[in-house]
Each structure stands twice: as structure tokens, then as C-alpha cells.
């Protein structure tokens, strides 16, 4: 007896190309994350509120710092602005892994894995698109507020540089967070790591104080901290005309130009994605 076994109903299942299918999957998964955000906007609001409080309180704390203490005679508020913008994007992106972790724990990921996804990278793409948009929106909100507080606004070219730098940082941190979301056993552990990583990385960077203020060992830390490589170009973009070949950082190991900062961030992003790829492949296979 011969039975037509593999009778996939072609009127139901489209025979469209791989790219169209990947776009359909990714769009649907991304839409889900945005619907969640719309109905539960507390993460969005908290993500703007926290850096805003930093900006206002920390800015006020050191507002009477003597003129000329900071490089270029900058006011502390202006100095802090760049740091807080980067901190906003950084802590936003650090949360990228949380929705994925909850999907793992509640079994929703299994629902996705039973479906004939054209590429399981769609799950990762959706997270990256979502968290990038979210972090950039939060950062822009902080930039606008900072401008209203009188801490300046980068020019058009400067704005592009700011966004590009933030994008690189957000990609890198998202990769890290997604990697953690698949490597750690549960959301408690993930939240603990996020909690521990957040503030020390901020302190050990040039967000709150310049390198010249720090003891040597901390200067080393700050000069190796990825956040610093994002903060310095943004601070330069706020300070005036753009020149990426200028030295932005007198690190203990040598002078770092704007170009070097961006190169380091690019390298970090690529490196982290390569690093988590085998992990994602294993967990999603």
C-alpha cells in the first residue's frame, strides 16, 4: 500500500524564500517584545528615571567643584553628561537577557523550538532589535533632559557619532547579556550578575571622574573598561568640533585617540558575538 505520506499542505505553507521567512519570524518575535513593553512599561520608565536621578543628584553634588579642575575647564554637569548617557545605554542593554531567561524558565522557548523556524537566529535578532531600540530611546531621553538642564547638545555630526558609539556598546553588552541568559541556570543568577556588574563598571570608568583623579591601579582599570571607550568619544562630541584622530585618553599604557576607542568597541562587539555563538548554537539546536 502506498500512502502519500509527506503531504505538506502547500496552500497553507508558503514557499517563499528563506529571507522572507526569517523576516516574518523576526518581526513576529520582535513585535511580541514591544507589545510586552507597551503593556508593562515599568522597565522603560525605570531605565530613564535611574540615570536621570544620577545626573541631577550627582551633578548637584559636585556642582561647586573648582573651575579648572576638569580638563578643558568643563563644568561637572557637562562632564557627567557623557558618562550618564553611556550608563543609560549600558544598563539598558545589560537587561537584554532577562526576557530570554524568562522564556527559558517558563517553557515559552520550547514553543519556539518546536516551530519550524527557518533560522533560530531569529530569536537572537528579535532580542537585539528590541533592546537596541529600547536603549537608544532611553539614551535619547537622557540627552534631551541633559540639554534642557543646560549641559549642552552635540552638533549634527556629533549626534551621529554619539549614536554610532552607543550602538556599538549596546551590541556588545547585548551579546554578553544573551550569553549569560543561556549560560546561567535561572533568572535569580542573571539578576545577581547584572546587579554586581552594573555599578562597579560605572565607578571604574571615566563616567564620574577623569583618569587624572584616580590612583594608578584604578586608572588602569578605567583605561581598560569598555565603558570608557564609549564615554570619551561622546564627551568629545559634546565638547566641540569633531576630530577622531585627537587623543582623548591619556591611559597608563599610552595615548588613545577617538578612532582607537571606536575600533576597540567594534572589536569587542565582534569578539563577544563570536564568543557566544557556539553557546547559542548548542542551546538552540
Amino acid at each position: 500500500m502506498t500512502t502519500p505520506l509527506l503531504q505538506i499542505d502547500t496552500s497553507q505553507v508558503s514557499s517563499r524564500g528563506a529571507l522572507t521567512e526569517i523576516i516574518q519570524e523576526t518581526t513576529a518575535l520582535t513585535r511580541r517584545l514591544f507589545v510586552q513593553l507597551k503593556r508593562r512599561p515599568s522597565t522603560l520608565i525605570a531605565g530613564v528615571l535611574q540615570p536621570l536621578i544620577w545626573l541631577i543628584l550627582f551633578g548637584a553634588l559636585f556642582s561647586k567643584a573648582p573651575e579648572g579642575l576638569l580638563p578643558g575647564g568643563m563644568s561637572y554637569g557637562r562632564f557627567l553628561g557623557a558618562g550618564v548617557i553611556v550608563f543609560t545605554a549600558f544598563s539598558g542593554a545589560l537587561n537584554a537577557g532577562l526576557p530570554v531567561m524568562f522564556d527559558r524558565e517558563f517553557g515559552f522557548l520550547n514553543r519556539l523550538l518546536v516551530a519550524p523556524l527557518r533560522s533560530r537566529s531569529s530569536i537572537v535578532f528579535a532580542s537585539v532589535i528590541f533592546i537596541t531600540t529600547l536603549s537608544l530611546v532611553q539614551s535619547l531621553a537622557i540627552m534631551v533632559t541633559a540639554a534642557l538642564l543646560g549641559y549642552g547638545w552635540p552638533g549634527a555630526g556629533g549626534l551621529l557619532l554619539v549614536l554610532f558609539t552607543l550602538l556599538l556598546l549596546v551590541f556588545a553588552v547585548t551579546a554578553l547579556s544573551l550569553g549569560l541568559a543561556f549560560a546561567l541556570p535561572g533568572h535569580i543568577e542573571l539578576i545577581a550578575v547584572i546587579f554586581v556588574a552594573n555599578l562597579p563598571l560605572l565607578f571604574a570608568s571615566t563616567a564620574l571622574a577623569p583618569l587624572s583623579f584616580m590612583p594608578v591601579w584604578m586608572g588602569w582599570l578605567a583605561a581598560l573598561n569598555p565603558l570608557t571607550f564609549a564615554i570619551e568619544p561622546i564627551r568629545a562630541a559634546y565638547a566641540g568640533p569633531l576630530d577622531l584622530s585627537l587623543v582623548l585618553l591619556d591611559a597608563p599604557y599610552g595615548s588613545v585617540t577617538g578612532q582607537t576607542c571606536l575600533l576597540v568597541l567594534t572589536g569587542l562587539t565582534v569578539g563577544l558575538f563570536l564568543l557566544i555563538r557556539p553557546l547559542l548554537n548548542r542551546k538552540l539546536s
Partner: protein
Amino acid sequence: MSLIVLDHLEKSYGTIPALRDLSLQVPEGCLYGLLGPNGAGKTTTLRILATLLAPDLGDVRIAGLDALKDQRDIRRLIGYVAQEVAIDKILTGRELLELQGDLYHLRPKQRNQRIDELIEMLGMDPWIDRRCGTYSGGMRRRLDLAAGLLHRPQLLILDEPTVGLDIESRAVIWNVLRDLRDQGTTVLLSTHYLEEVEALADRMAIIDAGTVIAEGTPNELKKRLGGDRVTLRVREFSNEQEAETIRDLLQPLDGVQNIVINRSQGHSLNLVVDGEAVLPRLRLCLEEAGLPVFALAQSKPSLDDVYLQATGRTLMDAELAIAGQRDPKQERKQAMR
């Protein structure tokens, strides 16, 4: 022709074996029941079929495809309704179905048509646009069934589809499953409810300790067991001595296969007899001994008897025994990616 062929499957979680040399064939177009106590390996078997899990050893073929290699084709072919319903509480039921439709690459127009069809079929209209977080267990199950049916799968796999459900939801789900079978879909479901297999299944397998111990149609299995069941009392509550006397009286009679004294039911006697013809002889024998029959109930063997015969214990006892051995933490870890 078999749609599913499982060949000598072995699977362990750490040192705990879940499947031991499990082989099974499910014919195309039938409603197939997998009966067994919790922890017998039903879920593991279904997860392997759904491509969520790979066996340590053995072959899995669905519609001639190798489930370990042609995973994407298999996923198109099957609908899988898991035991623990994973639903995004923030989305509405309709949004969840739309998401699911996109993951199966349905075109938007067909997707929405199909969703409307399923809403009608499963009676979800009053609540489908409410958020899933507000749903009862029965609503979630129906929604999950709809999600599994969106792409019109050739094979529908359901893991304990009616556990803990209200009667209405259970009836809805049973009817949908029967209709699907009538329209040519192969349906494979696991359950530890005897009456569910009895009500639904064309064929069934009993699974115990990770292996198949009996297979056939429910009637075949009962017939193979043979004999009628008789419950007999000479008064409301007999004492043990009287029950033993009766047993000794009846045991030598022609056509009486086996007698068990049921202590928990007032020392009533449970007999296995060859057929109805034996009953008048029983009555006569007891009357002659001055112990006329007070109550006598006769029944055909049930699936519980089949289970008892195959494993030497009742389904209920098996569940209790296994419940103590399970490691929920390990199982949760296994289900998590």
C-alpha cells in the same frame, strides 16, 4: 502503514533511565493513546517526537522522515501540545495565535482565516481577546490546542491534554480530537486516565518503566485478558472467616478462574469467571451451603484490569510508587534549554 516508528529507544537523564528499549508503531489516521502512570516515560517519548529531545540510542521515524535529521520538515508536519502550557501572559489569545502563525510562516490572510476557524471550533470567542494571564486551565488548554492546530498538522501530539480540566473543556477537546481523526489527522495522546483512552483511543499502548508492555485496540487488550469480573457478597459486611469459607466453596467450581477477597470492601469476593453461564452455578452452590447471595455484580474486564495483569499492580499504586522516585528539579532542568 505506520506514520510513527519508534525503534529501540533508550534515554536516560543522568543516571535515571527514562526509556528502556521502547519500540512503538502508530498507524496513520488513528487516534492513539499512550497510557501509563506518571513517570513511565510518556512525556519523554513525546518530547523526542516533537524534536525537543534526542534519544541516547534508537531510531525515530515520522512519515518516513528521520526525526533526528530532517527536523524542520518534521516540525512542519506535527502539532505539539505540551503538558505544561507555556503561554505569554501579557499577550491576548489572538496575539499568541498570530505569533504562532508567523513562526509557521502562514500568509497573514490565511493565518487570520485559520485563527477565526479555530476560535469557532474550540468555542474561544468570548475570551480570545483577553490577556492569557486571566485564563483558566481549560481556556489555556484550548488555546494551546488551537496553537498546535494552526498549520493543519498531519500529526497532532498531545501530552496529557485534559489533566485537571473542567468537564466542559474536556468535552470540547475530546470532540475536536475525534473530528480531527475523522478528517484524517493522526492523533497521538498520552494520558494516565483510563476513561480517556476508553473514550477516545482506536489503539493504545501501555507504558510502564520506560517500555511498552502491551499494545493493541482497547477491546483486543481486554479480550486477551479473558473472563468476566464478578463481585459477590452474601451480606453487607462479611467477616474474614466467612469470606474464606465462600472462597473455598467456589474455587473448585468449573469455570471459576481466580478469587480474591477484597478486605477494604467488607470482605466482598472478586472473581474472574469464564462467562455468564457460571453465574447460576455460583448461586446454587451458595444456596445449598445456606449462604444465599446478597449482591452480585458482573462486568467485562476494564483497562485497569489490563494494566493490573500486565504490571502486577493497579495504575493508582504505580503512580504512588513512582511519585516518590521522581526528581522534579532534574526534570525541570531537562525541560529547560
